[in-house]
């Protein structure tokens, strides 16, 4: 009886595990199957991401208003109001304006430097799974976003759009291990493929011949080959080089120029 029960358990579990593995294999061999399914039915995700974003903003406002009300009760009415206003401006308003001014100047500088068509866009959410370096941005198919578009900020290349929903899009960051980008070392003009290394926070520059004379600190920019990204967008700097005798290629580590911990505003890049 006990044997039957164990066999029954294993049989039932095996069915579900085999089914799961078959689905995995199917969606790996036909990647657009899942992407198309998600893009068609993404209204749920968009609704909740928007809800989350608005809720976050409202809670932030609410918390700020409570803290202001508490401090107002402790001080003299007239002086306190004036002082509060000045202090508030000094501590919150002016630094915020200065910071946003700097940020916008940097973005404007970037826009003037690069003759591409740029669409401004904001970060909406991060990936819920730590394994994937993926973010969601607040513009989608309705605003002209297409699969494969590059995403940049003032610091350089952020990633590329991999899925497009009506009002949002999913961006694969250059750090993701699935990300492969055609790049060029700016000083020597050597061409290679840049692949993300996930949690390590760096990328690997592949297929660069051992004889290529690259140095630590060299700028790595997009090559423009393949037509996905425009040429010359800064991706990062060479941070480590390992050459082994009798090896055809050298092992090169590239530190991205973008600070992925502080992502906020971006541009979507399209070729003119």
């Amino acid at each position, binding site marked *: 009886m006990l044997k039957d029960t164990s066999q029954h*358990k294993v049989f*039932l*579990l095996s069915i*579900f*595990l085999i*089914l*799961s*593995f*078959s*689905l*995995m*294999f*199917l*969606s*790996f061999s036909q*990647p657009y*199957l*899942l992407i198309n*399914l*998600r893009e068609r*039915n993404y209204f*749920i*995700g968009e609704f*909740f*991401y928007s*809800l*989350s*974003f608005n*809720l*976050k903003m409202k809670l932030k406002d609410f918390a700020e208003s409570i803290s202001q009300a508490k401090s107002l009760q402790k001080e003299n009415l007239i002086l306190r109001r004036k002082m509060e206003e000045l202090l508030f401006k000094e501590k919150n308003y002016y630094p915020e304006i200065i910071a946003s001014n700097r940020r916008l100047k940097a973005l404007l500088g970037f826009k003037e430097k690069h003759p591409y068509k740029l669409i401004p866009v904001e970060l*909406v*959410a*991060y*990936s*819920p*799974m*730590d*394994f*994937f370096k993926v973010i*969601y941005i607040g513009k989608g198919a309705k605003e002209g976003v297409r699969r494969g578009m590059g995403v940049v900020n003032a610091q350089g290349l952020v990633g590329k759009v991999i899925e497009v929903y009506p009002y949002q899009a999913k961006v694969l960051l250059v750090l993701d*291990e*699935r990300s492969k980008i055609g790049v060029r070392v700016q000083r020597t003009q050597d061409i290679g493929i840049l692949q993300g*290394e*996930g*949690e*390590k926070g760096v990328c690997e520059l592949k297929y660069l011949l051992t004889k290529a004379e690259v140095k630590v600190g060299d700028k790595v920019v997009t090559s423009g080959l393949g037509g996905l990204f425009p040429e010359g967008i800064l991706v990062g700097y060479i941070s480590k080089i390992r050459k082994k005798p009798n090896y055809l290629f050298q092992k090169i580590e590239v530190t991205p120029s973008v600070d992925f911990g502080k992502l906020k505003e971006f541009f979507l890049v399209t070729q003119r």
Partner: protein
Amino acid sequence: MKELGIFIGFLGIVSALQFIFTGWWKEGADLFLILVASWAWFRGWKEGIVVGFTAGIFKDIFFSPLLGLNSFSLCLIGFLMGNIKGEIYQENILVFLLGVGIASIFQAALISFWLSLFYQFSFLTNFSSSLFPSPLYNCGICFFIFLIKEGILKSKL
């Protein structure tokens, strides 16, 4: 039928919360895993497998690059949690929390394995990065789920 309704309700809530929280934090609790582990612990291995598979498919559709990636691990976790419950002292909260912690680490290992197999992700880097803080969050939430469930049971008695 009532159980099915409750499960669908929970699945809806979990999906909504997972969507909402991912807009707030980069790393957080895996609500799908919590749902499966708790359900299997309180209701047994059979329901654990089915609930794990369904919740996994749901998670795959919205959050994963491969269908079956989460359903594989969650269905296995549902089975294991449901089985352990029958073998040991079920009312001990520490055993339950330990089970959830191990299940979180087990899931991270399984997903890292499949990703390294399909996409050549680095197994060790991904696995080690997911050891903290997600399993802690999962155990924290399960602590309250256990207390609530115990409270409901006692009030019925």
